[in-house]
């Protein structure tokens, strides 16, 4: 076992934990900006939304072990993380449908990629608005249910290193 100085263990954060922390923080910031359509304008809103779709895939992949483990424990009477699992499932549906409907009603990004969808249906417009509002309620809950982990890792990552 390697010998470490007394101050190091508190500050040492595994590379994977660091990746999770900063990647998730970037997704949260990206989501907040993308949701603020009046701030970003349509061009940035659409490209950022597509990027968030890709980030969503990567985010779930990085936490796939948790998904499998927690799903397996769901039937236990006092299985932990049940509420988090339900919130995450709802968020998966809302976010996926939000990104998908956003792509379907895209006016800048898809034409830029030379893709044209013959869709002129207000259903997707309304679905996009509705799912976006649902995600605005669920994203902060998703974050807050992990506040102890965020606070713990954040404290270690952002603590000043001794000179």
């Amino acid at each position: 076992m390697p010998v470490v100085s007394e101050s190091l263990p508190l500050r040492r954060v595994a590379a994977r934990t660091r990746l999770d922390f900063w990647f998730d923080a970037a997704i949260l910031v990206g989501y907040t900006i993308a949701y603020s359509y009046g701030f970003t304008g349509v061009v940035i809103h659409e490209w950022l939304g597509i990027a968030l779709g890709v980030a969503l895939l990567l985010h779930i992949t990085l936490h796939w072990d948790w998904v499998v483990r927690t799903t397996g424990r769901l039937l236990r009477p006092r299985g932990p993380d049940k509420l988090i699992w339900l919130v995450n499932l709802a968020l998966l549906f809302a976010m996926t449908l939000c990104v998908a409907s956003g792509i379907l009603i895209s006016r800048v990004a898809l034409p830029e990629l030379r893709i044209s969808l013959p869709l002129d249906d207000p259903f997707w417009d309304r679905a996009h608005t509705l799912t976006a509002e649902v995600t605005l309620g669920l994203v902060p809950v998703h974050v807050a249910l992990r506040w102890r982990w965020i606070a713990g890792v954040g404290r270690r990552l952002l603590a000043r290193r001794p000179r």
Partner: protein
Amino acid sequence: MRFLRQLAAVTAIVAVVVLVGLAWHHFAPDSFGGQGGPGPHRFVVRGQAATAVHRGVKVPAGVELNGGGLSGIPSIQLGDLLEPVNLAVLWNTAWIEAAVIAAVVIADAGIRKRRRARR
């Protein structure tokens, strides 16, 4: 290799959710009600705080809306990004998120405290 396998599984699940959305559209295209336009769209009003306008709402004379007016999604130009007036929209989103996070954290801390006291 393991990562790619997991990514494929996640992609399959996301595809299923998209299919559910398409099925929803196919079997219940009027789920959001037939009358009126889509929900409120945000419009950036130059020189004023950003606001939301429903379709059909009359805009007061002299108020200039960016881009496509009330008939569709407004086309806000790239130059409008980071304009102080539009920052209100971003702060609004951030405030909502912060409020929900604070409420859940306070509730969670309270529940944990009560549980500890019971033991």
